[in-house]
C-alpha cells in the first residue's frame, strides 16, 4: 500500500521532475546564446571604446603637432612682418634710395590727362639735396639696423660695385656723350641681368599713388 501509495507519488515526483529537467535542457541553448551575445556585446563596446580612445589620443598628438606647426608659422609670419616693417621704415627707404644715387625733388610738374597740357614748373633736383639721413634723437639712440636691412644694403652695394667694374672695364671713350650713353646702356643691362635677386621679392618697387 505504502509502496503502491509511494509509487504513484514517486512516479508523480519523477514525472514532475522530468519535465523540469527537460525544460532546462531545452532552455540551455538559448541561454548560452544570450551570454555569448552579451559578452560579445560587452567586449565589443569595450573594444570600441578602446579604439575610440586610441583614436582620440592619436588626435591629441596630432593636435599637439599641428599646434606647434601653427606656432612656428605664426612666428615665421612675425619674423617676416618685422623684416617688412624694417624695410618700409622711412629711414631705411631714404638711405637705400640715397645709396642708389637718388635725390629728392620737390618741384615736379604734372601732365593734365584731358588735354596733355603740362601744369606746374618742373625744376631739376639740386645735386646738393642728397639723400642724407639726419640723426633726430640728439645722438641718444643705439642704432643697430636689422639684419635684413644690412642684407639689402649689401645686395645693392654689390650690384653697384658690379656696375662700376663693368664700366671700368670699358675702354675710355673719346666722346663724353658717347661715354654717358655707353654707361647708361651698360648700367641698364647690368641691372637687368646681373643683379642678384633681392631677398625681399625681386620686383622693382613701384610708387604707390595716394
Amino acid at each position, binding site marked *: 500500500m505504502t509502496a503502491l501509495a509511494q509509487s504513484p507519488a514517486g512516479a508523480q515526483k519523477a514525472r514532475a521532475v522530468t519535465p523540469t529537467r527537460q525544460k532546462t535542457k531545452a532552455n540551455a541553448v538559448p541561454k548560452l546564446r544570450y551570454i555569448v551575445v552579451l559578452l560579445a556585446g560587452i567586449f565589443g563596446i569595450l573594444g570600441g571604446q578602446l579604439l575610440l580612445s586610441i583614436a582620440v589620443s592619436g588626435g*591629441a598628438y596630432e593636435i*599637439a603637432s599641428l599646434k606647434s606647426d601653427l606656432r612656428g608659422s605664426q612666428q615665421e609670419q*612675425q619674423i617676416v612682418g618685422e623684416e617688412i616693417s*624694417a624695410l618700409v621704415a622711412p629711414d631705411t627707404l631714404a638711405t637705400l634710395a640715397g645709396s642708389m644715387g637718388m635725390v629728392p625733388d620737390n618741384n615736379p610738374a*604734372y601732365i593734365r590727362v584731358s588735354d596733355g597740357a603740362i601744369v606746374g614748373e618742373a625744376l631739376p633736383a639740386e645735386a646738393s639735396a642728397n639723400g642724407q639721413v639726419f640723426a633726430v634723437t640728439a645722438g*641718444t639712440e*643705439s642704432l643697430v639696423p636689422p639684419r635684413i636691412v644690412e642684407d639689402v644694403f649689401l645686395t645693392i652695394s654689390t650690384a653697384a660695385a658690379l656696375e662700376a667694374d663693368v664700366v671700368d672695364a670699358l675702354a675710355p671713350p673719346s666722346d663724353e656723350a658717347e661715354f654717358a650713353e655707353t654707361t647708361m646702356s651698360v648700367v641698364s643691362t647690368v641691372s637687368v641681368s646681373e643683379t642678384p635677386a633681392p631677398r625681399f621679392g625681386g620686383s622693382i618697387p613701384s610708387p604707390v599713388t595716394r
Partner: protein
Amino acid sequence: MSHQRVSRRRMGIALLVVFLMAGLLVTRLVDVQVVRAAELKEQSADIRTTSEVIWAARGSIVDSFGNDLATDVDRYDVSADPRKVGDFRRDGEVITVPAAMAEIALITDANPDELLYAVNRDREAHFTFLVKSVSPEDRQALRDLRNPWLQMDLVRERTYPFGAVTANLTGMLGTDEPLAGVERKYDPCLRAINGTATYQKGADGIRLPGTTQLVEQPIHGGDVRLTIDSDLQWYVLQTLAEHGSNLGAQYGSAMVVRVDDGHVLAAVDWPTFDPNDFSNAPVEFLGARSLSSPYEPGSIMKSVGIAMLIDGGYTYSEDRIVAPGFYEVYPGQYIKNFLVADNRQLTTAGVLQTSSNTGISVLADRMPKAEATRYLHDFGFGEITGIDFLGESSGQVLPVDRVDALTRYNQFFGQGISVTAAQMASSYQTLANDGVRVPLRLVDGCMTSEGDYVPEPVGEPVQVVSASAAQQTVRMMETVVTQGALRNTLEIPGYRVAAKTGTAEIANSEGYGGDRVISLAGMAPAEDPEYVVLVSFYKPQTSRVSSAAAPAFHEILSHVLKHYRVAPSSEPAVLPPLTW
C-alpha cells in the same frame, strides 16, 4: 562523513579569508575615498594638471595707412641652470662649456666671456640669464644647437618699427605700464589681458584629450589708428633736424594739418627719442612739445588778429592807415617795429606784409579788449585742441580784467599770450577753411579685437570769423610770399602760397631777453587752401630772425604739395595794394 566535515572547514577558512580581504579593501576604500579624499585629490591634480598662460597681444598703434608704429613681438629670454651646465655630446662630439658659449655668442652677438661669467659666478645658483630678448630667428638657431641645458622662455616685447619717427606721439611702454602719449592715453583700447587654461598631461608631456579647461579667456588689445602719415612725419622730422642743427636751435616743432577735416598729418618735435631704447634720452626730449609746451608765438599771430578785426568790421584789406615809428601806449611806454621806425602809409594788407607792430596797434585800438579776448577763445586759444593729448597744454589767454593797456595791443602780435604749436596750427586751419575751425584730430579711432571700429568722436566745427574775413586775410598773407623780403625763399613754382613769419622774444625773469622763437605758418594752394604747415624753432643761435625758419617751411610745404599730388594753381592771384 569526514569528507564532508573537511570540506566544510575549508569552506569556512576560505570564507573567512574572503571576508578579511573584503574588510581590508573596504577599510582602504573608506580611508582613500572618505578620510584622505580631499588631500589625495589635490595631490593627484597637482601632479597631472598644468596651467598655462594664454598670451594676449597688446594692440598696435598704426598710422593712417595701417603701418605699425608700435606693435607687440615675441622675444625669448635665454637662461640656464648653472648646476646643470656642463659638457655635452652632440653627434658623438663633445661640446665643452666654453665652446657652447662661443656658439651662443655667435648667434646672439653676445660676449662669450660674459656668458661664461654669468654661469661661473655662482655654480650653486639655480638660475642665471644668459641673453635677454632674442629674436625668434635666433631662438630657432639656438634650438638647432641641441644644447641640453639651454632654456628659452617666451616674453612679449613692444617694438616701434619706425624708431624715433612718431615717438613723440606714440609715447613708450615701461616695464609695467605705458608711460606717455597715445600708449598711455589709449591704454583701455590697446591693453591685452592674458588668459589662463589648465590641462592634464601624460608622462610624455602630451596633454590628455578632453582635459583642457579655459580658466580665463585671453582678451587681445585693439589697434589705435592715428591720422598721421608716417612718411610725411619722417620727412618733416628730417627737415627740422637738418635746419634746426644748422641754426643751433634748442628744439623745433612742426605741424601739417589737412584743412577740410582738421586731421593732423604730421606733428613733429625735434630732437626726439627712440622709444625702443630711451634709457639715455634726456627727459626734456621725451614728450610732444608741439602739444605740451606753450610759447609766445610772435607775429604769426598777426594774421589771426587781422582776421578778427575784419570780421568785427573794424578794417578791410585796402583800409588806409599811417603806421607811426613808435606807438605810444601811455606816456613812456612805446610799441616799436622790428625794422622800420618812421611814419608809413600802409594798407591793412601792408601792415601784415611788413609785419608792422605799430600798424597793427593802430588797428587793434579800434576793437574793445573784451571782444578781442572772446575772438581769441573762439580761435581755440586758452583751451586744449581737439587732439586732447595726454599732458596737452591749454596755453594762456589773459582774462579781460587782467589785460592791461600794453597787453591789449601786444596780443595782436603774439606777445602777452601763450599758445601751443597745435593751437597755432588750428587757428591757421580756421583761416584756411573760410573761417570754420574744425577741431584737430590725431587719433582716428580704435579697432577692437572683435573687428569693430570705434571712431573717436568728431568735434563740432565752429564758425569763428566770416568766410570773407578769412579769405581776405589769406590774400594778405599771399603778399608776404610774393612781395616780402623772403619771396625768393618762400615761393613755390606753380603754386600760390600764403604765409606769415614770426619772431617772438622769449620772456625770462628780467623781461624779454635776446632769445627768440622763430616761426613760419602758412597754407597752400592759397586760392583754396588744402594744407596748413607750421614750423617753429626755439632759441636759434646762428640766426635769430624769422627768415631763418623759411627754408624749412618751404621744404616742408613743397614736399606736402608733391606728396599729396596737389594740382598747381591755375588762377592768378589778385592781391590787395600794400601802400597808398
